[in-house]
C-alpha cells in the first residue's frame, strides 16, 4: 500500500522550533537522544498511523545519539525523510535509519564544535566586547549588544533550519551537504572576524591601560603570559586562574 508524502514545510518549521530544546534532558546514557526524539513530536502523527508504530518510532530514536545541538538538525531532516519513506512504502528501513544516525554523529559533532563553539561564538562575543569597550554612551553599547546577538544568531538560526530542510530533501546524499569544505568559507570569515576583533581588543584595551596607569599594562601582559604558561603545565582551569591571581596579588603588594 503506497501513501503520499505528507510532511510540509510548515511541519519542518514546527520541528525547527522544537529543536531549540535539543539538549534538554541531556543524560550520560543516551546523550541528546531525548531532546532529539521530542523534536519529532510535531510530525509523529503524520509518520505513524498506529500506536504500535509510534512506540517503535520513539524507541528507535531514544537510543544513543549525539551531535552538536545546531547541526543535529541535519540528522533530524534525514530521519524525518527516512521515516516518511518507511511509512510510504511500508518497507523495513528502520536499520538504515539507525545506521545513518550513527554515521552522522562524528561529522555533525566535529562540524558544529569547530564552526560554532571554536569560531563563531568567540568571534561574536569578542566583537561585542570590543564594541562595548570602544563605543561611548549606553544607547550605543546596547546597540553593540544587539549586533552581537545578531552576529551569532543569524548563522545559528540559518543552520538549524537549513539542516532540517537539506536533511529532509537529500537524505541519501547528505554527506555532500555536511562536508567540512562546504562550511570553510563561513568558518574563515568568522575566523578573520575573530582575529581582527582580538587585535582591536588588545590594542584598545592595552592603550587605555597605558594611558591611565602604565604599570597596569604590565600586569595585564604578564598575567596573560603567566596564565598561558601555567595552562601549558596544568589543565586545571581553577588552579591556573587562582594561581595566577594570587601570584599577581603578591606582586601588587610588592610593587604597587
Amino acid at each position, binding site marked *: 500500500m503506497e501513501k503520499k508524502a505528507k510532511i510540509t514545510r510548515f511541519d519542518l518549521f514546527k520541528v525547527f522550533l522544537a529543536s531549540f*530544546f535539543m*539538549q*534538554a*534532558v*541531556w543524560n*550520560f*546514557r543516551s*546523550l541528546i537522544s*531525548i*531532546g532529539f*526524539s*521530542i523534536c519529532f*513530536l510535531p510530525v*509523529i502523527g503524520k509518520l505513524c498511523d498506529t*500506536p504500535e508504530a*509510534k*512506540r517503535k518510532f520513539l*524507541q528507535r530514536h*531514544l537510543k544513543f545519539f549525539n551531535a552538536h*545541538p545546531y547541526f543535529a538538525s541535519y540528522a533530524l531532516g534525514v530521519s524525518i525523510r527516512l521515516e516518511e519513506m518507511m511509512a510510504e512504502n511500508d518497507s523495513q528501513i528502520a536499520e538504515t535509519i539507525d545506521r545513518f544516525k550513527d554515521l552522522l554523529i562524528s561529522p555533525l*559533532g566535529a562540524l558544529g*564544535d*569547530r564552526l560554532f*563553539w571554536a*569560531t563563531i*561564538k*568567540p568571534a*561574536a*562575543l569578542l566583537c*561585542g*566586547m570590543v564594541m*562595548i*569597550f570602544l563605543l561611548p554612551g*549606553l544607547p550605543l553599547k546596547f546597540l553593540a*549588544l544587539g549586533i552581537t*546577538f545578531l552576529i*551569532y*544568531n543569524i548563522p*545559528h538560526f540559518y543552520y538549524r533550519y537549513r539542516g532540517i530542510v537539506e536533511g529532509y530533501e537529500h537524505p541519501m546524499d547528505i554527506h555532500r551537504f555536511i562536508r567540512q569544505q562546504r562550511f570553510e568559507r563561513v568558518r574563515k570569515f568568522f575566523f578573520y572576524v575573530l582575529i581582527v576583533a*582580538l587585535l582591536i581588543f*588588545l590594542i584598545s*584595551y592595552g592603550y587605555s591601560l597605558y594611558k591611565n596607569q602604565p604599570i*597596569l599594562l604590565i*600586569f595585564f601582559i604578564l*598575567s*596573560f*603570559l603567566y*596564565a*598561558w604558561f601555567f*595552562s601549558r603545565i596544568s589543565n586545571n582551569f*581553577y588552579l*591556573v*586562574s*587562582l594561581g*595566577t*591571581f594570587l601570584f599577581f596579588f603578591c*606582586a*601588587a*603588594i610588592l610593587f*604597587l
Partner: protein
Amino acid sequence: MDEKLLLISVIISFLSLDITIAFQVLISSPIFSCTLLGWLLGDIQTGMELGFVFQLLWLGKIPAGAYIVPEGNIASMMATALILINKEIGWTHTTLAVVFIEVLLLSYLGSILTLYYRKFNGKILDLMLKEVEKTRVTFIVLLEVASMVVYFLAVMIFSFLALKLSQLFLPSLITLLGPIVESQLVMVKPVIIGIGLASIYPILKEAFSHSAGNKMETN
C-alpha cells in the same frame, strides 16, 4: 533582603536555561546576562562592565561531547549580583577581587550541579522508556518539562543559597580588607582579563588549525 535575593535567583535560573537546556541564543553569556542583571539592580553601566570583565574567562571552555565545563555563566551572574548589592560599601577593587575568587568556587560547584542533573536525567530516560512502552506521548513531553523545571529549581536554590551565604561574610570581609589592600588591588581587572585571554588560547589554536579531522581540545 531575602525577597530581593530570591528574585535575583529566579532571574539567574531563568537565564541559565539558555546555557544548554533551551534556545542557546547566547543570552546567558556574561556580556548579556550581567548587563540584564545590572539593569534590574539599577546599575546597567557596572553590570555591562562586569560582563566585559568575566566574559573572556569562560570562552575557552568548549562543551564538546560529554565534557562538563565550569558553569561560568551562572557564576558570573551571581558575581554581578553580589557586587551590585554590596556597592554601597565602596572598596570596588577589593569587592571584585573577593568575588572573583568566589566566582571560581561557584563555577566549580555549578559544574557539579550540572553533573548530578545529567545523572538525574538518566532516571528521566528510564521513565520515558516506560511511557513509550505504553505509547503515552503526552507523558513524554511532561517528563521533559519536569526535567527542565528540576534544573530551574536546582539552579534557583543553588543561587539563592550562594548569594545568602555570601552576604553573611562578604560585607564584613570587604570592610576588613578594603582599607588594607584596595590600592594594590587596582590590578584586579587587568589580571582577570589577562587570565581570560590566556584561557581562550585553545580555541585560537583550534581556529588556526585548518587541517580537517583534527580532534578538538576541550579543555
